[in-house]
């Protein structure tokens, strides 16, 4: 028995041994997916598929492409590559607006809504506009397509017929159609515009992610009839407090439809209302037949609704609920944005305005209609520091892209322009930070320093050299005592000047080389300019970022020049100069006034002596509305006011005055002074008129006041002059 036991034990062991042997033998050969024992390197790579593939030549050539699908989908599937003629935009980005249609007799003259007329006006006055259809990249029809709700009074009939009569329609190619409302009661089909827009792009409000043709259509915000054409109101956030918490956390006040499409969400909002920090009030009252549809909550809701004021809620709430209405978007979105009330989007599938370029994560919060009851908890979980950030971003976005019709239209254009195969790009940082991408126009270079705002964004510093450009209209002859001669001497001693250009706007012959002061180390050029003096022109000779613009009779010491340049290096996006002027509101005349009196603040720095970034020359000549340049041309004046307007419009900041100097013109005995326009009373009145013209053209007053000037660190301190770096400034009297 013992032996048998032992025998069986040995046998059992043997079997076990064999068992283990087999087990491991299998394991070694076998790879078990999903088990930790898998040695990754022993697995084959999926890349073999590529490697086999790589040796075959593809069957589909460039012409056919993978986008054969196009034919089968028609215009619903338009993409830039398939439905847009890029060749039209190769040279420039110009927009053609069709002329007014011949109005049929039975149609009212006002077949076009005020809003659409505003859009057309904004385009016609802009630099995008061309009257020549052959050089246009984009076409805008004169038919009002904003409201395509058949029940609306603004609904324009016979659009398909009218489209046919358009000369350049070509199936809609390169056309842009603006639309705010589509579809009608009861279904509100968003793709129903009542006409076939073919290959035309849509700039449409309330568009959904699934209806929007990616990189083709553009989602625009819903804006009211009263939306200003230009300028636009600033955001309401004046005080940027931290923590940014307000009286209410989340608020909503609005209609609810009780029945029909999109009504469920608003109908259940009352669940969130807590009377304390969450205010959700709705009313059933709208339209004539509301009583017919009213539900059991309506009376109670209507009472509560009256307790709260809409605009107070906007301003006293950290977050504002933006639920869908009949359509996905609502006016509420822009209203909340302007008020700095962070929008909480409760509109499933809505493609937010301009989301191709705007990072809405930084200015809004998404909620899901399906998870309505979680909204409160979600909003509560957002940390204070994020609320602080979101609120600021609402203001930035509002002012950059939404506050006027002009901004909305220009942003739409710039998005399309960015899709063109050009070499310039504007990245998301530029779009989503101030001053935004509308000012980042295509320039002659794509270097990082080509925009003055890029220094902040890219963390780069401007190069420390500048070009001095002197505008000379000198009537007397050039001598060693001429003001321009002395000015050139001062400039030549600056350690930062790298180039000097004299623009000779004079009928006289340019004085010969030897009569000018000698510049040993820096290039010196005299450019002859015939006709009236044109400042801020793009001179090819200018290689530096910084420009020192000077009148010929300016008196400046080298120290003043060098110090101002040091200041400019710290504020490259602003104008930095010496004498300053101010604007004020004249109650009696009900218009803006201009003053050269000594005041406690200033808003204009004269460009007879000022540093600024080269890029502003570009914007001045190529971007400003032609009407503004015309004003300057006609008056032969005001160009310095205009560039101050331009820079403050972009930066929202004042120019910078340096040092004590207030007069910079040489009082001359030779009679030059008396002929100077500065002494002319008409000149002054002209400037006042300019100021008001520019305000009208910009749509608001962009100038910003400052009550400080920048002086050298030890300026007029009672310490030894030897310790001071800029000693000449000490002795300059104002």
């Amino acid at each position, binding site marked *: 028995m013992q032996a048998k036991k032992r025998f*069986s034990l040995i046998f*059992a062991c043997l*079997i076990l041994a*064999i068992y283990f042997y*087999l087990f491991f033998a*299998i394991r070694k050969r076998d790879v078990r997916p999903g088990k930790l024992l898998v040695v990754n390197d022993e697995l084959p*790579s999926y890349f073999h*598929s*590529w*490697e*086999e*593939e790589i040796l075959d030549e*593809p*069957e*589909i*050539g460039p012409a056919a492409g*993978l*986008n054969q699908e196009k034919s089968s989908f028609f215009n619903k599937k338009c*993409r830039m590559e*398939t439905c847009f003629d*890029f060749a039209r935009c190769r040279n420039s980005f110009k927009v053609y607006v069709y002329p007014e249609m011949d109005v049929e007799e039975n149609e009212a003259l006002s077949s076009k809504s005020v809003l659409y007329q505003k859009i057309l006006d904004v385009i016609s006055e802009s630099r995008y506009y061309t009257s020549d259809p052959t050089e246009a990249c984009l076409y805008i029809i004169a038919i009002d397509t904003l409201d395509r709700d058949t029940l609306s009074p603004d609904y324009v009939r016979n659009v398909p017929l009218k489209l046919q009569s358009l000369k350049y329609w070509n199936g809609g190619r390169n056309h842009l159609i603006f639309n705010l409302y589509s579809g009608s009661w009861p279904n509100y089909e968003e793709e129903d515009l009542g006409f076939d827009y073919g290959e035309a792009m849509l700039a449409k409000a309330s568009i959904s*992610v*699934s209806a929007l043709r*990616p990189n083709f259509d553009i989602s625009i915000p819903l804006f009211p009839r009263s939306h200003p054409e230009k300028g636009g109101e600033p955001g309401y956030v004046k*005080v940027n*407090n931290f923590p940014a918490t307000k009286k209410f956390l989340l608020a909503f006040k609005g209609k609810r439809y009780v029945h029909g499409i999109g009504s469920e969400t608003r109908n259940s909002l009352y669940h969130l209302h807590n009377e304390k920090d969450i205010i959700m009030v709705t009313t059933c009252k709208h339209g004539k037949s509301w009583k017919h549809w009213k539900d059991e909550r309506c009376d109670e809701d209507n009472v509560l609704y009256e307790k709260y004021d809409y605009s107070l809620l906007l301003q006293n709430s950290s977050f504002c609920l933006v639920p869908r209405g009949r359509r996905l978007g609502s006016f509420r979105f822009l209203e909340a944005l302007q008020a700095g009330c962070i929008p909480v989007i409760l509109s499933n*599938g809505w493609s937010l305005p301009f989301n191709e370029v705007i990072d809405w*994560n930084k200015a809004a919060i*998404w909620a899901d209609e399906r*998870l309505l009851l979680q909204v409160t908890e*979600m909003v509560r*979980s957002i940390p204070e520091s994020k609320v602080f950030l979101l609120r600021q971003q609402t203001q930035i976005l509002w002012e950059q892209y939404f506050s006027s019709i002009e901004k909305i239209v220009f942003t739409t254009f710039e998005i399309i322009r960015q899709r063109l*195969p050009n*070499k310039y790009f*504007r*990245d*998301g*940082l530029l779009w989503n930070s*101030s001053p935004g991408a509308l000012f980042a126009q295509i320039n002659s*270079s*794509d*270097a*990082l320093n080509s925009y003055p705002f890029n220094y*902040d964004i*890219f*963390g780069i510093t401007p190069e420390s050299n500048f070009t001095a450009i002197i505008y000379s209209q000198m009537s007397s002859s050039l001598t060693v005592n001429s003001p321009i001669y002395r000015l050139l001497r001062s400039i030549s001693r600056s350690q930062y000047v790298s180039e000097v250009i004299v623009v000779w706007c004079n009928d006289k012959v340019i004085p010969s080389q030897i009569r000018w002061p000698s510049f040993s180390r820096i290039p010196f050029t005299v450019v002859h300019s015939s006709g009236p003096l044109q400042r801020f022109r793009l001179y090819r000779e200018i290689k530096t970022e910084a420009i020192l613009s000077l009148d010929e009779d300016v008196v400046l010491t080298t120290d003043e020049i060098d110090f101002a340049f040091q*200041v400019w290096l710290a504020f490259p996006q602003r104008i930095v100069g010496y004498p300053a002027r101010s604007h004020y509101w004249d109650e009696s005349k009900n218009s803006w006034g201009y003053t050269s009196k000594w005041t*406690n*603040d200033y808003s204009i720095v004269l460009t007879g002596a000022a540093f600024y970034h080269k890029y502003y020359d570009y914007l001045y000549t190529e971007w400003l509305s032609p009407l503004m340049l015309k004003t300057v041309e006609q008056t032969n004046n005001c160009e310095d006011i205009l560039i101050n307007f331009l820079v403050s419009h972009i*930066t929202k*900041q004042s120019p910078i005055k*340096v040092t004590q100097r207030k007069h910079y013109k040489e009082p001359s005995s030779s009679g030059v002074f008396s002929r100077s326009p500065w002494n002319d009373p008409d000149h002054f009145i002209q400037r006042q008129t300019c100021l008001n013209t520019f305000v009208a053209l910009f749509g608001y007053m962009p100038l910003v006041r400052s009550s*400080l*000037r*920048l002086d050298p*660190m*030890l300026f*007029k301190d009672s*310490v030894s002059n030897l310790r001071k*770096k800029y000693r000449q400034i000490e002795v300059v009297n104002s």
Partner: protein
Amino acid sequence: MKMITRYGLNSFRKLNFKASFHVTGAIILLAVTVVVFLIVYEINELKPRRKFVSKKHRSSEMDQVIIRANFVSSAERNTRCSYYSCFNPYKCGRRGISQIQVYVYPMKHFLSESKEPIVHSLTREFNTILETVKRSKFYTPSPDEACIFIPPFDTLSQTNILTKEVSQALNMLPYWNNGENHLIFNLFPPKNAAVIDLAAGNAMIAGAGFNSWTYRPSFDISLPPYSPLKNIAVQERRPWLILSSQINVHSSFMEKLRHLSRINSELIMLHRCSDSDLSYRCHQNGTRYKYPEVLGKSKFCLILRGSRLSQPVLLEAMAYGCIPIVFSDTLVMPFQEVIDWNRAAFMILENDLNSVIQLAKFVSDSRRIEISQQCSWLYSKYFSSMEAITNTTLLILNQRVFPENALFYENWNVRPNFIGARSPIFLRTKSFSTSFTAVVLTYDRVESLFTLIQKLAVVPSLSMILVVWNNPRKSPPDSSKWPQINKTLKVVRSKENKLSNRFFPYQEIETEAVLSIDDDISMLTEDELDFGFEVWREFPDRIIGFPSRTHIWDNISLSWKYESEWTNEISMVLTGAAFYHKYWNYLYTTSVPEEIHQFVDSHMNCEDIAMNFLVSNITNKAPIKVTPRKKFKCPECTATEMLSTDFNHMLVRSKCINKFMEIYGRLPLRKVEFRADPVLFKDSFPAKLKRFKNIGSL
């Protein structure tokens, strides 16, 4: 429905038990074991070899499932899906976690009716995806908790699967529910197609090579065609302008390119070498280059569409810092939802191939270097391994489901070492605040504190004084003893005597602007303080103040030195008397490195330097000194250092600068040569017309 056959190790165990009793039984068992094993082995061995099957799956421990021909297939891929129409959010965020939970189905051995595996082999890349998911914080082993499901089929390559059978097998998954919340990975779609050929119902597809028609925005995820590259070394010198090294390019593209390279020597074309060795590329003149290393020789690399829209050379070029110029109309770029490709590549129309030289020449050096660095960074962060790709996919899914936690554009697209200004106080307009709060840190100098309070109270723009009583052992004086002022006065007591108490974001501070002031600084005039506040309103993200200092390089100690002499430039404004935004208090308390806090607390010094470092590091801007005032301690003293004349004190402050610099990894302080004065300062002008007339000197 399911036909599951089990054999293998489980049956061994049962028999083994019996064997210990009967020797004969044992022998029979042994024989059976061997026979069974051999049979299984042979069956496997006899199976036909597939294209790239290098290892065989064995059915030893894994369940086997046979897919019968009559099984119902899953529904076709729903082309109209969006997040809102096909994704079920109720499955997510259970148990109160604001984070997706991902479940991975266990691997099973699926066979077609003809006993052919429906997935030919498990690839290294798919295995990595699964392992990465399992290691990630998003993983859950419980399908009941899961929000997202990953099917157990390796669908990375279309050629690796039996399309029909996998479509049927998907439908057999226990939680499939027409693909709801399921995620299918694919890197190699079928030829001339933009998406995997699979009946995936409402499942999301994370795939490479989508075009904008097949890609369902907000639903699918666009992946890069991963390339398993190794040994990346980015070269600094790039002799070539444009390189075309792709092999599988259509002949009509090729002809255009050949023509271009004939007339432009800047376009280098490399082809397949005659021996078809893919780790080399050959030039027409016969030169052989190692691939992909050769990509590092060029500034720009051409990426052209082949039989598939997306090509692995994209990642290879990026890995070598060669800027991709992509010719692939309607292609959806990898992770396009979050990555801004404008920062890292050029996407050009296929028709514009001829303009490529002109384009490359136009790009300025500064821009090119920037883009190239961005490429390398994007590659290393999102594309360098299947692990990185998987993690990015999960992050994107997570922020779709929990958008309130979504990362911002700059979190995705801006390199951490990219020192652009990201000031947290970025409203461009001048601040419209009309008043500020003075915060006075005091220990026990009650007398000078009271003097200061009285002086401060008359400043028109001051709205409140907050006294931080920093002496834990002594109580502040009785409320009756405090000066009577017509402004709000509040006292908070700190628990410990810490300098950082001065920078705490006290709830009591209701204004944007804070004036931080020492209890012995009582010489500042109303006009000076009003003006200081006015300057702050124009520069609300900077420190605006009166005492200024600078840092200078010391050639003897070879380190930075703190300088309190009256110099022509400054880089710091001391918080003994300075205005700044309250948010800096919050950041000082929450985001200054712990090491700095410890240093400040242990030395009872340098909190003001730390504040200057914090602000300059974030804004890239210098502080601004206002008015000439330079002496603070007492008007008649001549000593230049107002806070401490102690030499040792100065040494510590120098040490702070060097220490903080080390911690921040750079010296963020910026020097400026200007100070702010009122517009009419020192002008010969009637004083009564000056807004700020009483501006003291020194």
